[in-house]
C-alpha cells in the first residue's frame, strides 16, 4: 500500500513557522499506510482513496508537549462531508504533557475530484481554562479508472463494462487480431491496478505491465489481448482487472472465421455430394471410353477459403476446365472443374484428387483387354514394353535361331488378335508356329509363337514385328558363315564326246553345316568355231541350280538328281562348267577363283545319224542323210549301192564331193542353230540299159551304205535299205 496521506505543509511547518510550533506544544504524527510523518498545526493532510466511495483514512496522533494539562473536547470536520473521524476518540480527553490523542480521519470520496476540508481540534488548557483549537487542513483525492477497449479492425474505443463481453472481430483461422485494453485514470488520485488476468487458450495478453501498477491521474495504462484461432469456432475467455481493489471481470468472446467447403460430383445422370477422404466409386468404364465428371466446390463457411491447388493422379484421370490457382472462395462462392476419365489400361484403377487440403479417392474398374508381351532369352522370360525391341544373338549367315514370343492378356475382357506379322519386306525374321488367326485370348490366358532369325547376309539387320497396332523392333546380326570346303566337279561317266547327254556331279570334300544353293554355269569355248546352241543343261539354258542339304556333300539338281545332265552338242570345243555357291539367304560362298570343269568335245570324223528316202520316182529318188561334223566341215559323201539280184550297177561306189555344199551350209547363218548338224539331200536319177517302160529302176537297188568324210577321217557307215522303200514314202 502506497502512502495514502501526504503532508503538504510539513516543510513550512518545520522551517517557516517555528514560532507557531512553539506556540502550540503539540507533536502531530500522521500515519497513512506505513508512512508516518510529523506535521505541524495548519498542515494539510492528503488522503488518497483507492476509489470513489471507497474509504481511505489517516491515523493521527497528537502528543501534547506542554507542561500543563489539556483536555481535547471536540473534533470538527469541515468540507464536503467526505471527511470524518473514522475512529473517533473518546472526548473530552484530558492528557498531561506527553499525553497523546489518537484518532483516525476517514475519507470517503463521492467523486474522483480533489476535495478539501479542515479538521479543527478543540482543546482546553486546564491550567488556564483557555479554550483553544488546533487546525489541520484536509485534502482528499481519488482515482477514476475508466476501462475501454478498441478492436484492431477499426481502432474505435469502446467502454468496457464489467460483466459485459468484449467481442473480438471475426478472425480467419490461422490469422490473428487483437483488442487494446486502455485503463485511463480520469480521477484526482493515482489508480491502482493490482491484477490483470486473462484466461482463455486463444487469448494472449500483449504488452502487459507488471502489477501492481499505478495509473497516475490523466495517465493511461494500455495492454492488448491477441486472438489467434487455429481452428474454426467460438472462443471465450475472461479479462480480470483488479483496479482500486475491486476485481472486475470482462468476458472475452471471439469467433474464428473459416471456410467450409462442400463438394459435389456430377455425372451425366446424377449429382452426389462427396466428402473429403472418402472413396468414390465410378462405374466401370471401357478402355478408351471417356467419362466426364463435373466437380463443384462451394464455400458454405463463414470465412474466405483459399484453394491453392487442384490436381489428380491415377491412370486415365485428367482435369479440365480448372480455374487458375490459387482461388479464393468467399463464403457462398463456388468453383467448378471437370474430371476427364479415359482409361488406357484395363484393371482396377485408383484416382486421387486433391482440392486444396482435401483429398478424394476415386475407384473404378476399366474394362478391356490388356496385352503384355514377353520373349525368352535363354531360361529367362523378358517382358517387352510396347514399342520395345527383341535382339537376337549373332547368328551365322545361312543359319537360324529362334526365340519364343508370348502374348498374355492381363486385361478384364478377352482380346482378339488377328494380325501378327513381320512388317518389313525381305526380312530374315519370320513368324513361325503361329496359332490360327484371329485368335481369342481370354483374360489371364496366353498364346505363344516363334520368331525365327535366319540371317542371309553378314551385318546388322532390323525388322519390325507387328502385333495388331503394336510394333516391336527385331534386331540381329549375321556373322560370316564357315568357309566352303573344297569341292569336286566331275562327269559321271568319264570323258565326253559330241552328241552326248552326260551328267555332271558336284560334291563337297566335307559336309557343310549349312544348307547351300548354287548353280552350275556352262560356257563354251568353241575354239574358233561357232558355239552350238544345243549345248544346254537338262533344265534348258546354260545354268542349272542345285542345292546341298545342310550336313551333306552331294549337290542335288532339280530336287532329286545327283547329276546335272547336259548336251555336249555337235561342235568341237571346250565346255566350261563353273559352280557358284551361296546360302539360301544369298550369302555368296563362291571362291574367288572357283575350280572349273572343262569338258573337251574333240574334233572327230563326221558321224552319220540317220538316212531316209525322201522322194522316189520310177527312175529317180532322193536320199536324205543326217549327221554332224564337229569341226563343221564336210568333204565327201560316199555311197556304196548294192542291187537286187539280176540288176547290175557298173559303179557301185559313188563318192560325192560336197565341199562347196557343206561350206555353203556351215557358212550360212541358218546353220548356227544346228551346231555341226547337217542334213544332206542327194537326188539320184537312174538310167537303165533297156528302155522298158514297165521297169521301176529304183526298185533294182537293194541298199546303200553311206559314209561321210572330212579332214578328221571317215564317218560310221549308215545303211539304208532301198528296196521297197519307195512305197513308204508319204
Amino acid at each position, binding site marked *: 500500500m502506497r502512502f495514502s496521506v501526504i503532508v503538504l505543509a510539513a516543510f513550512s511547518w518545520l522551517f517557516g513557522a517555528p514560532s507557531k510550533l512553539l506556540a502550540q506544544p503539540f507533536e502531530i504524527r500522521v500515519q497513512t499506510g506505513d508512512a508516518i510523518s510529523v506535521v505541524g498545526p495548519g498542515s494539510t493532510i492528503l488522503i488518497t482513496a483507492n476509489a470513489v466511495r471507497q474509504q481511505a483514512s489517516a491515523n493521527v496522533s497528537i502528543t501534547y508537549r506542554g507542561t500543563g494539562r489539556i483536555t481535547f473536547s471536540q473534533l470538527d470536520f469541515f468540507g464536503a462531508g467526505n471527511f470524518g473521524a473514522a475512529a473517533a476518540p473518546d472526548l473530552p480527553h484530558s492528557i498531561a504533557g506527553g499525553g497523546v490523542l489518537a484518532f483516525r480521519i476517514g475519507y470517503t470520496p463521492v467523486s474522483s475530484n480533489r476535495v478539501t476540508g479542515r479538521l479543527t481540534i478543540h482543546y482546553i488548557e486546564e491550567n488556564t481554562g483557555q479554550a483553544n483549537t488546533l487546525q489541520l487542513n484536509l485534502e482528499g483525492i481519488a482515482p477514476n479508472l475508466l476501462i475501454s477497449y478498441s478492436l484492431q479492425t477499426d481502432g474505435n474505443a469502446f467502454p468496457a463494462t464489467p460483466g459485459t463481453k468484449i467481442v473480438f472481430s471475426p478472425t480467419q483461422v490461422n490469422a490473428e487480431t487483437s483488442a487494446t485494453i486502455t485503463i485511463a485514470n480520469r480521477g484526482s488520485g493515482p489508480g491502482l491496478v493490482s491484477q490483470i488476468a486473462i484466461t482463455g487458450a486463444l487469448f494472449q495478453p500483449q504488452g502487459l505491465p507488471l502489477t501492481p501498477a499505478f495509473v497516475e491521474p490523466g495517465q493511461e495504462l494500455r495492454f492488448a489481448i491477441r486472438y489467434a484461432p487455429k481452428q474454426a469456432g467460438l472462443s471465450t475467455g475472461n479479462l480480470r482487472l483488479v483496479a482500486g481493489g475491486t476485481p472486475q471481470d470482462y468476458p472475452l468472446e471471439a469467433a474464428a472465421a473459416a471456410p467450409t467447403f462442400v463438394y459435389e460430383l456430377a455425372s451425366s445422370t446424377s449429382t452426389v455430394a462427396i466428402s473429403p477422404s472418402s472413396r468414390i466409386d465410378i462405374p466401370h468404364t471401357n478402355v478408351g471410353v471417356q467419362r466426364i465428371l463435373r466437380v463443384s466446390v462451394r464455400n458454405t463457411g463463414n470465412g474466405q477459403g483459399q484453394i491453392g491447388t487442384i490436381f489428380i493422379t491415377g491412370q486415365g484421370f485428367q482435369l479440365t476446365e480448372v480455374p487458375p490457382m490459387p482461388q479464393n472462395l468467399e463464403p457462398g462462392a463456388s468453383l467448378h472443374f471437370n474430371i476427364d476419365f479415359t482409361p488406357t489400361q484395363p484393371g482396377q484403377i485408383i484416382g486421387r484428387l486433391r482440392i486444396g487440403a482435401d483429398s478424394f479417392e476415386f475407384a473404378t474398374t476399366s474394362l478391356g483387354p490388356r496385352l503384355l508381351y514377353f520373349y525368352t532369352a535363354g531360361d529367362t522370360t523378358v517382358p517387352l514394353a510396347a514399342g520395345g525391341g527383341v535382339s537376337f544373338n549373332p547368328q551365322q549367315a545361312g543359319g537360324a535361331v529362334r526365340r519364343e514370343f508370348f502374348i498374355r492378356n492381363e486385361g478384364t475382357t478377352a482380346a482378339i488378335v488377328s494380325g501378327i506379322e513381320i512388317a518389313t519386306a525381305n526380312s530374315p525374321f519370320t513368324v513361325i508356329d503361329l496359332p490360327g488367326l484371329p485368335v481369342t485370348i481370354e483374360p489371364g490366358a496366353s498364346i505363344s509363337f516363334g520368331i525365327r532369325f535366319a540371317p542371309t547376309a553378314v551385318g546388322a539387320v532390323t525388322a519390325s514385328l507387328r502385333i495388331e497396332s503394336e510394333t516391336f523392333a527385331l534386331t540381329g546380326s549375321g556373322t560370316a558363315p564357315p568357309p566352303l570346303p573344297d569341292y569336286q566337279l566331275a562327269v559321271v561317266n568319264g570323258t565326253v564326246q559330241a552328241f552326248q547327254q552326260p551328267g555332271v556331279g558336284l560334291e563337297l570334300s566335307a559336309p557343310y553345316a549349312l544348307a547351300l544353293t548354287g548353280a552350275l554355269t556352262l560356257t563354251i569355248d568353241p575354239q574358233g568355231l561357232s558355239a552350238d546352241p544345243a549345248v544346254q543343261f537338262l533344265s534348258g539354258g546354260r545354268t542349272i541350280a542345285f542345292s546341298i542339304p545342310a550336313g551333306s556333300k552331294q549337290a542335288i539338281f532339280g530336287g532329286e538328281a545327283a547329276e546335272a545332265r547336259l548336251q555336249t552338242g555337235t561342235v568341237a570345243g571346250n565346255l566350261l562348267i563353273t559352280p557358284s555357291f551361296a546360302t539360301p539367304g544369298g550369302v555368296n560362298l563362291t571362291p574367288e577363283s572357283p575350280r572349273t570343269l572343262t569338258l573337251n568335245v574333240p574334233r572327230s570324223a563326221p558321224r552319220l545319224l540317220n538316212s531316209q528316202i525322201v522322194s522316189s520316182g520310177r527312175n529317180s529318188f532322193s536320199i536324205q542323210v543326217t549327221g554332224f561334223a564337229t569341226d563343221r566341215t564336210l568333204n565327201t559323201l560316199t555311197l556304196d549301192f548294192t542291187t537286187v539280184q539280176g540288176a547290175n550297177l557298173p559303179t557301185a561306189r559313188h563318192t560325192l564331193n560336197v565341199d562347196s555344199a557343206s561350206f555353203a551350209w556351215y557358212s550360212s547363218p541358218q546353220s548356227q542353230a544346228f551346231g555341226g548338224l547337217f542334213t544332206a*539331200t542327194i537326188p539320184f536319177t537312174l538310167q537303165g540299159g533297156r528302155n522298158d517302160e514297165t521297169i521301176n529302176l529304183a526298185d533294182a537297188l537293194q541298199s546303200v551304205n553311206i559314209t561321210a568324210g572330212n579332214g578328221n577321217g571317215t564317218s560310221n557307215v549308215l545303211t539304208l535299205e532301198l528296196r521297197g522303200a519307195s512305197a513308204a514314202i508319204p
Partner: protein
Amino acid sequence: MRRIIRPIFLWFALPLAAAGQNSAMSGPVSGFVYDAPSRGIRPVVGVAGTAYLGAAVASGLEGAFIAPNGKHAVALREGRMVLLRGLESTAEESDLGAAHYWEIAAWSPDSSAFAVYSAVTRSVRLLRNLPGEPAWEAPIDVSTLGGVLSSLAVGQSGRFLVAGIRGEAAGGLYWMASGTQPVLLTTMVHPLGLGFDADGRHFYAADRATNSVVRLPDLASSSPSGITTASVAEPVGLGISRQGRFLYVAGQGGKSVSVFEAATLRQISETALPALASGVRPLRDNLVYLLSAPLASGEPYLVLEGHPGAAYFVPAAEEDHP
C-alpha cells in the same frame, strides 16, 4: 510292188561331181511340240540327243495336236479350234469352229484326218481332207457304248476310227465309221495307247488294266483276226516305227520303253528312261517319239529315238536362250 524284169543295167544319169553339187544341205528339225509353259508350238531343232526347242511358230494357244507328219496341227485358240498349216515355214491359220470337242483327240497316220472326242456330248467328230480342204464328218455317238472313252485312233485318211472304252463290263476297242454302228473289236478294261502302223493296216493297243499290248492285224475292216498279245508293265502309250517293223510301248512300271517286233510282238529290247513317260506320240514321220512334255518351264521333254531305241531329253529353254 512292181515286177522287176531281169537282167537290167543301171547307171546314174549325173556325173558324180554334179551329184555332189546338187546335194542340198540344211538343218534337221525333229518335229514340233505344243509347249504348254510358253503356250506355243515350237520346233525341236536338231536331232534327239542334240536337240532343243526353238522359237515358237505359233503362240497364244491353249493347246495343240501336231499331225504325225509334223507339218500341220489343230490347235485351240480363244475357245475355237484352228488349223495351222505349214509349221515348217510360216504357219497359216484357219478357223475350224467352236471348240466343243477337245478332251481326247487323235490323228490318222497319214496326217489327213483328225478326230476329237467330247465328254460333254459323248460323241466323236472327225475332220477329214486335211490339210487342204478340211471337212467335219457327222458326230459319232459313243454314249451307247457304256464305259468311258479313254483313247482314240484314226484309220488311214479317216475312213474309220477305233475308240477305246474303259470299263469293267463295257470296256473294249470299238471300230467306228460314220453312218455305221460301232463294232466291238475286242474287250479291254482300260485301253490307253492306240495306234496304226504307217499304212494304217495293223492296229495296236495297250491295256493298262491287264498290263498288256495287243496287235490286231489288217484292221482295214471291222473283222480282225489273229490277235497277238504281249506284256508291258503299266503301259501308257505306244508308237509304231515308220516302216511298221517296231512297236514301242512306254510303261511306267519299269520306267522304260519296250521295243517289240511289230509283226510278232516279240520283245527285242528295253530302253530305260530317265523319267516316267506319259505317252508315246510321233514327232515326225514315226522316227522320233515324244514320251513326256513338261507342264512347267525348266523341265525337259523326253523323246525316244526310234532306231535303235534311245531316250534323250530335249531342253526347253526360254526362246531367247541360249
